[in-house]
């Protein structure tokens, strides 16, 4: 459906953007022996309203921007040999009226031999919306 008319009335609430921030989180290369955890935290002051609705996008090492966020299972071709699969980046977002904290964790889900995860950079765009009716 492509909207072809403008109708707005007070029967509906709307979604207004408060702010939008862009930033990057870098992971150094790390050797993981069993279950490995590598965490980076990032805090950004946004001055947003309480209870902001957050939508985030990210891309891995300058690749394509993804619309699914907060869980990212790196593709094999993003990691390169000799690493094969099963590494997960998890991003924890917490919003307050003053700041957002992004807690990015790199997890090796393998249980076997040591592997070295190459350094990488994850770019984020985080959009804050004012909660309707507040």
């Amino acid at each position, binding site marked *: *459906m*492509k*909207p072809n*008319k*403008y*109708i*707005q*009335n*007070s*029967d*509906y*609430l*709307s*979604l*207004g*953007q*408060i702010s939008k921030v862009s930033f990057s989180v870098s992971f150094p290369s790390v050797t993981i022996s*069993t*279950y490995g*955890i590598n965490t980076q935290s990032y805090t950004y002051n946004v001055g947003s309203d*309480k*209870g*902001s*609705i*957050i*939508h985030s*996008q990210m891309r891995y090492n300058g690749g*394509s*921007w*993804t*619309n*699914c*966020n*907060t*869980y*990212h*299972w*790196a*593709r*094999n071709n993003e990691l390169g040999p000799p690493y*094969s*699969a*099963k590494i997960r980046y*998890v*991003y*924890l*977002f*917490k*919003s*307050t*009226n003053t700041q957002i904290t992004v*807690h990015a*964790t790199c997890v090796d889900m393998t249980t076997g031999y040591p592997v070295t995860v190459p350094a990488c950079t994850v770019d984020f*765009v985080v*959009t804050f919306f*004012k*909660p*309707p*009716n*507040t």
Partner: protein
Amino acid sequence: MPNVDHFRLDSDYPMDKVVYFKQGTFTPSSGSFSFSHGLNFTPLLFGVVSKNSDFSEAYSFNTPMVEKHTFEYPFSVTSIILFSNSTTVYFWIGDNTMAELSGTWYYRIYGFSNESADIVANETSTQGGNLILNSDHNYYRLYETGSLDWNGSQSRTVTHNLGYRPFVLTWGRVKYATQNFPADITQTYYTYNTGDSYSHGIYVDNTKITFDCMSNQIFPTTYYDKIWYRIYANEA
């Protein structure tokens, strides 16, 4: 107002309409939580939860909220996943034993219509007095909505040709229900799960949205079997 250009209304595109709103309390430690939404359609839901009644510290649904590290589980995270179907709103609580999820929590849920933008919005009309346009806010303009089937191992694309990377929201219907985990509609939250059962990603660029399924995986299949998308005439 830091940038007056942020406030733009465009008669070519409507602001998106929030047609469903509900707020209340729940107890995550008690497990999953559900209630009837009372609508005659399945809403596309989103929202926030908080341990504070004033939402001074809030988390969006479908995002990792807390993590724990134990010998048995060196790393695990928990989310609250928000689902909808034709009758019910459902909160799936990942790990309700985490101490951070104890006590009473507060939720606010909002919903878009899943197809037509011109439904009767009985749920939000009572909130109509709260529709206040504020020149500090950039009200996103809806460019296109739609849905597509995403079965099996196929990749799909939706062309928008806006010439810039637009802001896009997507919801998916979970393909397989598991115990206490419904095959209902939720905001997409996975990007690739290589080596396991699901291998997909959703990518947005200047001309299209790609609903990608990796054909070189052992089990190339998607986590969702149908997608709903909303493309906005706003840059991501």
